Structures are given as structure tokens and as C-alpha cells.
């Protein structure tokens, strides 16, 4: 065990730190995460930011050099995340492309697919969404019904996806569809890359409980998808879908550290200026207990992640242990948002339109948004099923 950075890891950290210092846009420093007038404005800002980072060589750093990455080690990736957090940098926009599709294509994609898609994921020239869930296929993903029928050199896709995050911004969708309706449910699926600008694709934003519209319904009506856009084998889509989900659980959590660290530090700051029962919240023993507990959990989340990364570096793939992290961060974030509410008292409920709101209403928003955390990317119940069966070897419950 050696948590000391190697000399090259150290150099990497310094170089990145300098770049961040010089390049984070001033308007971000003023606005922080939620100060934008519209979600479109926010989207454009983040897209430009990713492009800027890409041009400086800071996006997808652990991807192989030949695909536009730096061939950085997973540990450099961890340093990268830590430095992003420290600098309070804006997040990278194209997360689904960067964390999910990219690694899947690098592992399983054809040469054509790698050449055609990877670089544009990095540069944010093409934004990706994930077309898995359907109205009748959520946790039981393999029961999905969107169908694709082969017609010469392309498939014709018909059906509906739902809860599709980024669907309204996305240029492309990686999705799972049914290509053999007669096969057993896991065996007739195919993983394909669908151009969201093709004729027959329509997107309808869904309004979430937060009032935002991050996710969408996506309809496919006779949409043509060339056979070259199938990843893996036709009818071999389940394996691809699972590989992607593993990456989701293994790596997506890592970047969340940025937000968590920033938030707990902010809450500690707030506690020093907020009064409770006639004294500062930072002197209130109950608030102190709760802030300390959150800090401890966020730190343990970081440490768990480092252990996961070490294991990934050794074995090459994220294990089912990613499910531990998914449960850990999603339930932790819900507790943290609740603590923020307790700390802020009546101000916690104020939304960004209100002049009295704290931090542009980010806490009211965060409280609601965190509710989705234990549902998206596989519910907590499903994660516990995965741990029970795949990690602990208990019999499958269904």
C-alpha cells in the first residue's frame, strides 16, 4: 500500500493545477453551478468549457493516446478529479459519452466506430444520451420492446425510450433494442448507436419534480440505423449493456466527489454565519455532529473510490463492487441535502427566483434532485440485489 504520488503523478497534478487556475472562466466563478438564466445557456457554457479543456488535452485523459486521450493511469484520472474539485471547476458536459460509451467502444467497438465517434465525444462536438429505459422496462431492462428489424445494410427501429437524460441536447444515442423477438429476453437484444438527427426521431422533454427537464421521452418511428453502428454482435447486446452499466457504477461516482466536497465545505462556511437558537450554527452540537458525519462519509466515499480504482487498474474492469459505491453516494447525498435543509432553516426552501434564496436556490434544488439519485443508474434495491447475488453469491431473488 502506497498512497504517495509518484514523481510523474506529482508533475501531472502541478501542471493541471496551473492550467485550471489560468483557465476557469470568470463568469463561472461568479455564477457557480446554478446561476444561469436558462438551461440552454448553461448547456452552451459547459459545452464550450469542455471544448476548451479538450483543446488543452484534459478530457478523457485515461483513454489511449490513439483515441485522443493521454493514456493516463487511473490514478492520474483520480488526481484529475481531485484537482477539478479543488479548483471548483465546472463539470464536463458529455458525461454519458465520456464515462459510459467511450470505455465501452474502446473495449468492444470496431475500428470504424472508434475513429468515427471517440474524438467527438472528447471535444463535446457530439453529445450522447443513453437509451435504455422504456415505459415498461426499467429495473427489468431486458424486457424492453423497442424493436429493430434488419433491412439490407441497415436496421429499422421503432419504439419508445423514456427518462432519457440529455435527450433534448443529444446528437447521438447509445441504446439497446430488440432484434430477435422470439429469443429469450436477454438473448434477442442489440446495442446500437443511433443518430438523434435521423428522420423519425422525436424528443419530448419530461418535466421533473425539480421543475427542470433533464430527461425526455424519445420516440423512434422507422428510424434507419446502419449495421456498422451495432456495437458487439447482433443479439449480443445484453453483454454490451451490462459492460456499460459497470462503467457507469464504477466511474460515474468518482466525478461526483467534486460536487460533494464543494458542498460540504460550503455548508461548513454557511454554519459559521447562520444563527440557530440565538447562537451560531457552527456552535450547535447537533449541527456539528451532522456536518462531521457528512464529512466523514464523503471522505470514505473518496477512499472507497481509490480502492475501486486500484482494483480496476489491476484487473482492467470495474467489478460488481461499483454497486457499493452507487448505494453509498446516492444515499449519502440524500442525507447531505437534508442536513443542508436543517442548517438553512426556512431559507432552505427558497428557489433561485427569490431574492432571499441562499446560493441561487441551489439547496432547494439539490434537495429535490437528490431524490432521483437512488433511482437513476439502477435503483438502490437493484444494487443490493446485485451485491447479494454477484458479490456475495446468494441465490437470485427473481
Amino acid at each position, binding site marked *: 500500500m502506497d498512497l504517495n504520488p509518484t514523481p510523474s503523478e506529482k508533475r501531472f497534478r502541478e501542471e493541471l493545477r496551473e492550467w485550471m487556475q489560468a483557465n476557469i472562466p470568470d463568469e463561472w466563478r461568479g455564477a457557480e453551478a446554478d446561476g444561469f438564466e436558462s438551461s440552454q445557456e448553461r448547456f452552451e457554457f459547459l459545452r464550450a468549457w469542455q471544448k476548451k479543456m479538450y483543446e488543452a488535452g484534459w478530457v478523457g485523459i485515461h483513454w489511449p493516446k490513439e483515441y485522443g486521450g493521454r493514456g493516463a493511469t487511473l490514478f492520474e484520472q483520480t488526481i484529475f478529479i481531485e484537482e477539478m474539485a479543488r479548483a471548483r471547476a465546472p463539470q464536463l458536459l458529455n458525461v454519458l459519452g465520456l464515462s459510459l460509451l467511450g470505455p465501452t467502444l474502446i473495449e468492444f467497438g470496431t475500428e470504424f466506430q472508434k475513429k468515427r465517434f471517440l474524438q467527438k465525444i472528447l471535444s463535446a462536438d457530439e453529445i450522447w444520451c443513453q437509451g435504455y429505459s422504456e415505459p415498461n422496462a426499467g429495473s427489468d431492462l431486458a424486457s424492453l420492446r423497442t424493436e429493430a428489424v434488419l433491412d439490407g445494410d441497415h436496421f429499422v427501429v421503432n419504439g419508445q425510450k423514456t427518462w432519457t437524460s440529455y435527450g433534448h441536447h443529444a446528437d447521438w444515442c447509445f441504446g439497446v433494442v430488440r432484434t430477435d423477438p422470439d429469443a429469450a429476453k436477454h438473448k434477442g437484444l442489440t446495442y446500437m448507436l443511433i443518430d438523434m438527427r435521423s428522420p423519425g426521431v422525436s424528443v419530448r422533454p419530461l418535466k421533473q419534480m425539480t421543475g427542470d427537464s433533464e430527461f425526455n421521452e424519445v420516440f423512434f418511428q422507422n428510424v434507419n440505423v446502419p449495421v456498422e453502428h451495432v456495437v458487439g454482435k447482433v443479439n449480443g447486446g445484453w453483454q454490451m449493456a451490462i459492460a456499460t452499466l459497470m462503467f457507469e457504477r464504477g466511474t460515474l461516482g468518482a466525478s461526483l466527489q467534486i460536487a460533494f466536497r464543494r458542498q460540504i465545505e460550503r455548508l461548513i462556511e454557511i454554519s459559521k454565519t447562520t444563527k440557530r437558537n440565538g447562537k451560531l450554527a457552527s456552535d450547535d452540537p447537533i449541527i456539528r455532529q451532522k456536518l462531521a458525519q457528512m464529512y466523514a462519509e464523503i471522505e470514505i466515499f473518496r477512499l472507497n473510490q481509490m480502492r475501486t480504482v486500484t482494483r480496476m487498474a489491476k484487473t482492467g474492469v470495474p467489478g460488481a463492487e461499483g454497486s457499493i459505491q452507487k448505494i453509498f453516494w446516492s444515499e449519502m447525498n440524500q442525507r447531505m441535502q437534508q442536513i443542508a435543509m436543517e442548517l438553512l432553516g426556512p431559507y432552505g426552501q427558497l428557489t433561485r427566483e427569490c431574492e432571499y434564496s441562499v446560493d441561487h436556490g441551489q439547496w432547494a434544488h439539490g434537495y429535490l434532485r437528490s431524490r432521483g439519485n437512488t433511482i437513476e443508474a439502477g435503483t438502490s434495491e437493484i444494487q443490493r440485489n446485485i*451485491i447479494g447475488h454477484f458479490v456475495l453469491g446468494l441465490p437470485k431473488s427473481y
Partner: protein
Amino acid sequence: MEFDLSETQQLFKRSARELFSQECPPNLVREMIEGGQPYSEKLWNKLAEQGWTGLIFSEEDGGQGLGMVEMAVAFEEMGYSLVPGAFLWTVTVAGSLIARTGNADQRKKYLHAIIEGRAKAAVAVLEESGDWSPDSISLSAAESGEGLKLQGRKLFVNDAGIADFIIVSAITGNGPIIAVVERNAPGLNIRPMPSLDGTRGLFEVTFEDTVVPAGNILARGREARQALEHALDVGTLALCAEMVGGMQWIMDASVEYAKTRKQFGKPIGQFQAVQHHCADMLLQTESTRSAVYYAAWVMESEPGQAPLAVSIAKAYASDSFRDVGNRGIQVHGGLGFTWDENVHFYYKRAKAAELMFGDAAFHRERIASLLID
């Protein structure tokens, strides 16, 4: 950067698991608990023979000079086998105190006796307040020509009844002081404090005009306070590692039971309510392990950060071990509530461990004071 045990450390872990499964099997632990005697000379001698009593001490002192990560691994495995006795306090707390503050004579007389397995030691910290902060010590001591005179009472002193000497923390007009009190010192009175964890003994230790020679004083003032805080952190870290081992055992036993016990024609592990208890045990065990290994590494490599890292580990371990114990017994059903099944021994260890060196709330307050104030 690598956050995993090295090959050598893993090898050490495996051999420790094997050692304790042979030298301290469940039936021996049960015998000791049922006999009301958590101290076995035979086991102690075996450990000493293999160099365990010198684990973390320098080679100049005759120790093995192993690091904090190795110490954590060792205690994890002791926790897995629920090893009873005086090892934790003798080696990690008393040993660390003397190693940090002792002069040549004191090292020779006390530290080397520990390392060579000739002596067991206790450290008297807690008093009536039950507060683990070194600042709340109030046992009165007076220094004079004849030595140090102690007057007062310590409570919850682990292993005092069998210790060859007790390191006592007290307060004089000039601030904190720590000194060695030998078992035959005048006015020293030791009585057991029966408690629920049968793998370790707690004692009341009373000093009635007890005089110890000036040569037994280990440290005074700032040095005494710092040494005490450090030794308690080393002990806390070792205990947290032991807690990880205990959690691992409960989880292993519960998962095994869930695979074999059948109800409604199925293994109970097929029911999600049971399966999810097991999943949560894994989450809590692994997360505590991350916190503990990290704290061990920090204590060795960035000692300035150790108080925060150790308190994070103890706060989390305290709640998690208890919780894993609850889930473990629940999964075992009625059997889990019986004396004949071993899981309750771990459950009791979990409660005692939660309270030792400060519970979760104590350590959260320490975290808060490091972060907020």
C-alpha cells in the same frame, strides 16, 4: 499510488488468519468467556514467541519495526478470531506511550518487558466523567522528593486486574503527568467492573496515597498530553481494525447461514429482505476497511493528519460494527439470540468497542473541532 495491501502485507494477513484460527479457535474463545477469564498465559506466550508483542516497536528496542498498516492488518485478523485478552492495550497504548516518552531505564524495564512477552500493561485514562478527552483527566498527583503521590480513582481500566504495571494519567499543579505504577505499589486497589463483553476485563483502580518513585515518571505537561493523545490514536486505530475483522466475521457467518438455512422451501438468502441486510453488511464492512487502512497509512506517512483520519475511522466503525451486528443477528433468527451461537460474542464486542476510546459522537465532535473551529 496504490490503495491496496501489498503482496507481503496480504501474505502477512493470510498467515495471521491461520495463526489465530489455530491458536485461538472459537471453542477456546468460548471457554475463556464462559470461564470468566479472558486472559490465557498460553496464548500470550505463543504470541510473544512469534514476535507479536514487539510488532510495532523499533528493532533497537527489540521489536519487529513493522508499520501501522501491518499493525492494522494484524488487529483485523485478531478481531476476526475475536482474540480475547490484554494485547490491544498492552501493545498499542502502553507500548506506544513508553516508546514515545520512556528514557533508557524505563524502556529497558517496561517496554522491553512488553516486547519480550514478560509483562502485560494497562493504561488508566477514564474517570467518573467517562470522557475520553485527555483534557478531562482530574486524578490528583503531587510531586515531591520521595516521588509522585497519587490520590483518586480511575474507572473502565482495561486489563488492570492482570497487568504487571499500570500507566496512569494524572494532573499536578503544573499540568498533566503520566507515570508507571507497579502492581505491588502501596495503596493500589483494583476491583473488577463486570460488563457485557467477556473478551476483555474492565476494572476500577483506586490510588490511596500511592507513591511511585520519581524514576517512574514518563512525561509531564505538553509532552505528556501529546504522548497520551498519540497513544490513544494508535490504540483507536488498532481497535478500528479489530472492528473491521469482527464485521467481516459476522458478514461471512451471516451470508453462509443465508445460503444454507431454508424456509418456504428456499434458502433464506433468496429473500430480498435478507439479501439486502447482507448487502448492507458488505457496504459497511468495506467502507470501514477503507477508512481504517487509510488512517493507518496517514499515521505513518502524514502524522499531522492522523487525528482527523483516525476519528473518521472510529466514528464510522462505531456505528457500522453495531449495525452489522444487528443485521447479523436478525439474519440468524432465533438461533442468533441463543448463547450457543457465536454471533452474540461479536455483538457484545461491538458495543464495547463502540464505547472504547470514545463513541461515534465523541469522534464526530473531534472531527468538527478540526474542521470548523
